[in-house]
C-alpha cells in the first residue's frame, strides 16, 4: 500500500462541502489534459456591429461588443480626425425602467471610461431591480458623445422581498391541461405531430386567454 502516491490527492483535506463542490463531485477526474489536442480557435470577429448586455446579478451586468472598421471610420469622420484622437471610449449606462422602447425618456445614465479593445466589460450598477440599456461611444473634451453601438435591453432582478402584498389566486385544472397534450401515438409522422401540436397550441392559447372558467381569481 502506498497511500500518499499521487499529488492530485494532497488538496483533498481542504475541500469545502458546499453544494457546488458536491456537484463537482461527479466531475472529479485527474490527468485529462494529456489526452487531448486543444480545440481550434474560434473567429476573432464575425464582422458584426453589436453590443450585447447580459444579466449577472442584481447589481452587475456583462457587456461584449464588436464593430467593423467601416463603422469606426464613419464615426471618426463624424468626429473629425483631430478631435478623434481626444476621444475616450465610454459605456453610457441608461436606467430605462418604466421607459418605452427609445432612450428619450430615460430617467438617468452614468458613464464608464473603458478600453475599447477590451471588448467585454462587467458593469456595476447602483441599484437592483432596474432595466438597463447601454451605449458604447466616444466622449470628447467639447462634451460631445458619439454613439458607436447600442445594446439590447435587460432587466436585473430586485434581490429583495417585494413590498407588494396584495394577492391574487387561481385554479388550474390538471385534467384540462393534460388533455391538451395527450400522448401522441409514436407511429404518427413528425409532420402530423407538428400539425397536431400547432392546433393544440392554438387551443391552449384560447384557453389561456384569461376568461375561461377554470381560471379565476378569488
Amino acid at each position, binding site marked *: 500500500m502506498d497511500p500518499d502516491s499521487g499529488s492530485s490527492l494532497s488538496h483533498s483535506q481542504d475541500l469545502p462541502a458546499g453544494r457546488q463542490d458536491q456537484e463537482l463531485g461527479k466531475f472529479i*477526474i485527474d490527468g485529462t489534459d494529456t489526452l487531448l489536442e*486543444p480545440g481550434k480557435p*474560434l473567429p476573432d470577429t464575425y464582422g458584426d456591429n453589436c453590443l450585447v448586455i447580459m444579466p449577472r446579478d442584481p447589481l452587475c451586468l*456583462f457587456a*461584449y461588443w464588436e464593430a467593423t472598421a467601416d463603422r469606426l471610420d464613419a464615426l471618426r469622420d463624424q468626429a473629425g480626425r483631430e478631435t478623434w484622437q481626444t476621444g475616450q471610449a465610454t459605456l453610457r449606462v441608461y436606467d430605462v425602467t418604466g421607459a418605452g422602447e427609445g432612450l428619450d425618456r430615460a430617467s438617468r445614465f452614468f458613464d464608464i471610461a473603458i478600453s475599447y479593445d477590451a471588448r467585454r466589460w462587467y458593469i456595476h450598477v447602483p441599484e437592483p431591480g432596474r432595466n438597463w440599456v447601454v451605449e458604447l461611444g466616444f466622449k470628447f473634451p467639447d462634451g460631445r458623445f458619439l454613439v458607436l453601438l447600442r445594446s439590447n435591453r435587460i432587466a436585473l*432582478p430586485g434581490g429583495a422581498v*417585494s413590498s407588494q402584498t396584495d394577492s391574487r*389566486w387561481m385554479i388550474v385544472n390538471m385534467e384540462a391541461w393534460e388533455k391538451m397534450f395527450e*400522448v401522441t401515438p409514436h407511429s404518427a409522422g*413528425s409532420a402530423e405531430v407538428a400539425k397536431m401540436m400547432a392546433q393544440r397550441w392554438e387551443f391552449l392559447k384560447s384557453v389561456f386567454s384569461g376568461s375561461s372558467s377554470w381560471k379565476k381569481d378569488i
Partner: protein
Amino acid sequence: MEKGYLALVLHAHLPFVRHPEYEDFLEEDWFFEAVTETYLPLIDIMTRLVTEKVHFRLTMSLTPPLCAMLSDPLLQSRYRRYLGHLIELSEKEVHRTRNQPAYQDITRMYHQKLTRCRQIYEDWYRGNLLQAFRQLQNQGVLEIVTCAATHGYLPLMIHRQAARAQIRVAADDYQRHFGRRPRGVWLAECAYNPGDDTLLKEAGIRYFFMDAHGLLYGTPRPRYGVYAPAYCPSGVAAFARDMESAHQVWSAEIGYPGDPVYREFYRDVGYDLDYDTIKPYLHSDGVRRNVGLKYHRITGKVPLNAKELYNPAAAREKAAQHAGNFLFNRQKQVEHLYGLLQKKPVVLAMYDAELFGHWWYEGPDFLEFLFRKLHHDQKDIRMVTPSEYLEENPNNQIIQPEMSSWGDKGYHEVWLNGANDWIYRHLHKATELMIDLAEQNPSATGLRERALNQAARELYLAQSSDWAFLMTVGTATSYAQKRTLDHLNRFLALNQQIRQNTIDDLFLSEIERRDTIFPHLDYRVFRMTQQKAVLV
C-alpha cells in the same frame, strides 16, 4: 391525517460525453460511475420498496443528454466492459485480503454490490435503464421530469428562440423515451428568467423548480413563502426549494455526508495498490486514477494516509440515524409551518442525484431508510410528487417569480465570469446563424437536411451549461474548453458549407457518427413562428 407534504426531487444529469473516435475515453467514466453508484442503486431501492408495498414518492429529472447516454448502444457496451473490469478487480481483492479480516467486510461489500449492479443492469433490463425508470413512473412511485434539452442556461441566451428550442426538444425527447408529455421540468441550474414559464406552457409543461429566493422575491410577496407553489401569470406552477432540508444535506458544517464514519471519496485503490496489480484496471495511458474501490472512512481532519478503515455496517447504521434525524427535523418543521400557515405546507427537498451514491456513498442507504421511516414511523408527513400536490391543491397564489438560479450567490455568476464569459459571443452568433439557416431553408431534404440537423445538434451540444461550469470550478477545464470549441467549429463549418452549397458528406458523416444526440431532431425547431429574429 397528515400535516404537510414532502416532495423529494433529485436532479440526474451528466453532459453528453461519448467518444467513438477513441477506444477508451476518460470522461466517459463520469457516466459509468454515476450508473454504478447512483442510478442502479436508486432503481434497486425503488423496486424493492414497490415489492414490499412501502408507500413512497420520488421526483427525478432525467435530462435529455443523460437519457441519450443511457439508451446509447456504444456506451452500454462500454459500461459492460467497465463494470466487468471492476467486478474482476473486486474478486481479486476479496482473494488478496482473505487473511485480513478488517478488509474482508469491505472487499466483500464491493463485490456483492457490483455483482448486484450487473444483475440489475444485465439480467433485469438488458442494459436499458430507461425502461426501469419508465416502469417505476408507470407504477406511480416515480415522477420523471425533463430539463432543458442540453442543460442550456436559459437566462444567458439572448435569443428567445434558443430558449424555446431547448424546451421544445426536451419535451419531445421525453415523450419519445417515456411515452407521454413531461409534466414538470428542472430548469438547468434552476436558472429562471421571468417569461421562461411561457415557453414551458407552450410545451405543455405544468410546473418547474426554482431556488428559494426566486419565489420569495417574487411579486407580490408569496403568502406561504416557499411552502406552497405559486402560479406564474402564465398558469405554470413554480415550486421553490426548502433551504432547511437543503442545508442538512449540503452544509459544510452540519451536512450528513461529512460524517467521519462515512466512506472517504479521495482515498482509492487506484493509488493505494501496487502498480502491477492495479495497472490492468487503469485507463490505457496507465496513469493512476480513482477506480472506485475505496477502503477508508472520512475519519476526521487527518491526512489521507491517516484515514482509518471503513466499516460498512457502522456506516449503514449512521445512514439510518441520519435518516431518522432528517425525518425528525421535517416533522418539527411541518408541524411548525402547519400551525403558522394554517395550511398543509409542501417541503421541497431538492438535490443533485449524483450526490447520493457517487459523492455521498451511503446516500442511497439514507434514502431507503428515509422512505421506510416515512412509511412506518409517522403520520405527520406524506410524500408527494408535484403533480399529485397540484391535483390536490389546484388553487394557488399568482406570483411573478424573480430571476434566479441555485448557483453560488443565487444568480448567474458561476456561468458568467472571467473564466467563461468568452463563450457567449460565439454561442449567440451561432444561434443567430442557426435561426437564419432555419428561416432560409424551410423545406430542405437529403444531404442539406442532414447538414442542417447536424448543425442544430452541434449548437445544442455547445449550449450545455456544464462547459461554463467546469471552466469556473477549474476541473476538466481543458476538456470543457475543447468541447465548446469543437462543437462551435463544427457548427461554423456546416454553416458555411450549407450557405455555399458545398456540403462535405465525409465530414458530415463523421460528426454525425460522433455527436449522435437527438437522432430525431428537426432543425426547423429554430424557425421563428410569426416572429422576427430579434433579441429578447
